[in-house]
């Protein structure tokens, strides 16, 4: 391969910024997250196909009200994180921080609701290992196992997303994310949208389909 040397000589590392690369990297990472949950969706659909009645019974015992409330909370938080990106683009860092703090507040609200929802079930001994759980039909047991597994893994993502957004808010405060360099916040926002998106699938799968 022939090379030519017409460019000026550079002896020092050029600190170059490639926002496209960072975003591409984030999107690829989000693919892997989707496929991670995809494995669970696959298991869910196969066991649902094998035990349709048990799954239907199981989903009747979930609290649609709390689920719907949490869906609204998460969709609202997705809006506020998107608004925070617009705010930083318009060079309003304080507004951006405020919107992120509100998003994190939504995340906390979501977790509080989940705490009550899980707590209620655990109060009735409806969790793996108890006598009540062992007395369930196999399909119902699988439903609750998947319910705990999927919402639990999702909640872990809510926690990680909230921490990431907290870091982003701090970066804005320190001036590391500005109106002309906000790719990190965009990536944080993308992650938060993913958390939202997965919930939008989990909610009907677990709560609504009877």
């Amino acid at each position, binding site marked *: *391969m*022939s*090379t*030519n*040397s*017409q*460019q*000026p*000589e*550079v*002896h020092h*590392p050029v600190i170059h910024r*490639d926002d*496209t*690369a960072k975003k*591409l*990297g984030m999107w*690829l*990472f989000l*693919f*892997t*997250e989707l*496929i*991670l*949950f*995809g*494995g*669970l969706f*696959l*298991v869910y659909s*196969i*066991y649902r196909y*094998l*035990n349709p009645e048990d799954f239907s019974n199981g989903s009747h015992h979930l609290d649609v009200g709390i689920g719907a409330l949490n869906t609204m909370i998460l969709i609202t938080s997705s809006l506020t994180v998107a608004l925070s990106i617009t705010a930083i683009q318009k060079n309003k860092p304080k507004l951006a921080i405020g919107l992120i703090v509100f998003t994190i507040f939504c995340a906390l609200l979501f977790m509080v609701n989940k705490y009550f929802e899980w707590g209620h079930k655990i109060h009735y001994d409806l969790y*793996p*290992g108890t006598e009540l759980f062992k007395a369930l*039909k*196999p*399909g119902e*047991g*699988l439903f609750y*196992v998947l319910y705990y*597994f999927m919402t639990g893994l999702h909640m872990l993502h809510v926690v990680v997303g909230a921490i990431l957004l907290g870091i982003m808010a701090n970066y804005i405060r320190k001036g590391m994310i500005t109106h002309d360099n906000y790719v990190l916040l965009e990536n944080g926002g993308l992650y938060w949208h993913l958390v939202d998106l997965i919930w939008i699938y989990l909610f009907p799968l677990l709560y609504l389909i009877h």
Partner: protein
Amino acid sequence: MTTTTLPNYLEDKQGKKGLMVWLTTHDHKRIGLMYLAALSVFFIVGVLIGILMRLELLNPGKDIVDPQTYNSLFTLHGVIMIFLFVIPGIPAVFGNIALPLIIGARDVAFPKLNLFSWYLYMFGAMLALGTLLVGDGPPDTGWTFYAPYSVKTGTNVTMAVFAAFILGFSSILTGLNFIVTIHRMRCPGMSWFKMPLFAWALYATSWIQLLATPVVGITLLMIAVERMLGIGLFDPALGGDPVLYQHLFWIYSHPAVYIMILPGMGVISEIIPTFSQRRIFGYKAIAYSSLAIAFIGYFVWGHHMFTSGMSGPARVIFSILTFLVAIPSAIKVFNWLATMYNGSIDMKPPMLYAMGFIFLFLIGGLTGLVNGALAADIHIHDTYFVVGHFHYVMFGGTGFAFFAAMHYWFPKIWGKMYSIKHATRAFWVLFTGFNILYFPMLVVGIMGMPRRYYDYLPQFHLPNEISTVGSWITVLGLVYMIVVLIQGMRKGEKAERNPWHGLTLDWQTDSPPTLENFEEIPTVTEGPYEYK
């Protein structure tokens, strides 16, 4: 280009001291060498376990270990060799070292993430080896962790699957890094079809790492949770389906087979034109066939389960798809041979290993088709034929490609040259030992000897004896090769910038390169193999 005055990457300490120079580096070449160091240790551990197993199989009945120990040995041999050596293997070591060099970049796209991947790899490796030391003994399930046994055995399976989960995560991040690097950091003038074929192979591999690994991640997590909470996702007694576990496992682990072989094919595609001093035949066909293998590879996992209970039509479809993978693989082999035709072939060690690869991969690939044929598979499933087949592909294929890459980029990495004479001899010892070790397995498998037993019937004695003797010759070859390379690293003659007269960009910079790789980012005007 003028000779640079900057220190090379092995000497440039950037004001740090001792091991910190390495442990905190963001340089892709150093990270590659750190992978090489770790991988070599795990490879040697894996080889030692393999030797023990072969010793046990020297005679029928008990020779040195009892059945339970043997179960743990083949599990550990599999886990170490597959998750710690073959899967990360070429991408983590030579992908890291060579990818930025051959596409004319200063580093990968995310250098910090690259270092993080290494730490994840080491953490996963420590967990995997830790199963030996803590808990109720190393896992005895085989490297596939099939449920429901993996859920019920008292051995340390939870830790082992968690290790595999972490290692998978490391592999995903490396793949992500390479995809972004290839998309964004090719030097000016290097269009997709002026990119060296090793980069194409890594690109296809990275997509598999990215899209397949999460499936096994979540599956292994399910096994771990099942063991910890006593739930029944895959336990038939509690309503679960163990065959579903096999599906999920192979949805990842079959594409993973191509994570193992594709980078090896990429290495061979670099070496053959360089040592034939000829333009590669069918550049686009080789590039596209990498993508085709990656793509079709997703849809063939069912061929691991022909005997586990699957509908007739599903088996036929999986069998046909399996045969389809042979086509892009054969395209590569024919193109390599056509490249050599009429070339001025230079039988230096990298070329010898490349030709060894073609020969052994041919046997491995064709025996793979036998496994993929429905009727034949019923007979040979879970026999030594399968063991022989995948060792021909993984060791004869990926392993030999790894050694080829090691001999090929050696002068670039160390700036020194090993003894060509001794490296050539080591190759022949290794190649001979390899065939004596594994060919009898194919024979004894067809005779009906099942795999994963510490004992066998008397009529299988002779082939097993031959095979065990072969394992000694193989180890001799490996030791010879390693000694030659270490000698070369320490006392070898100074290597020039381009000892093999290659045309790709890695050979146009210093040996060893500086931390920045190139004084100025090169501009390319023609394809990578335009030998005159």
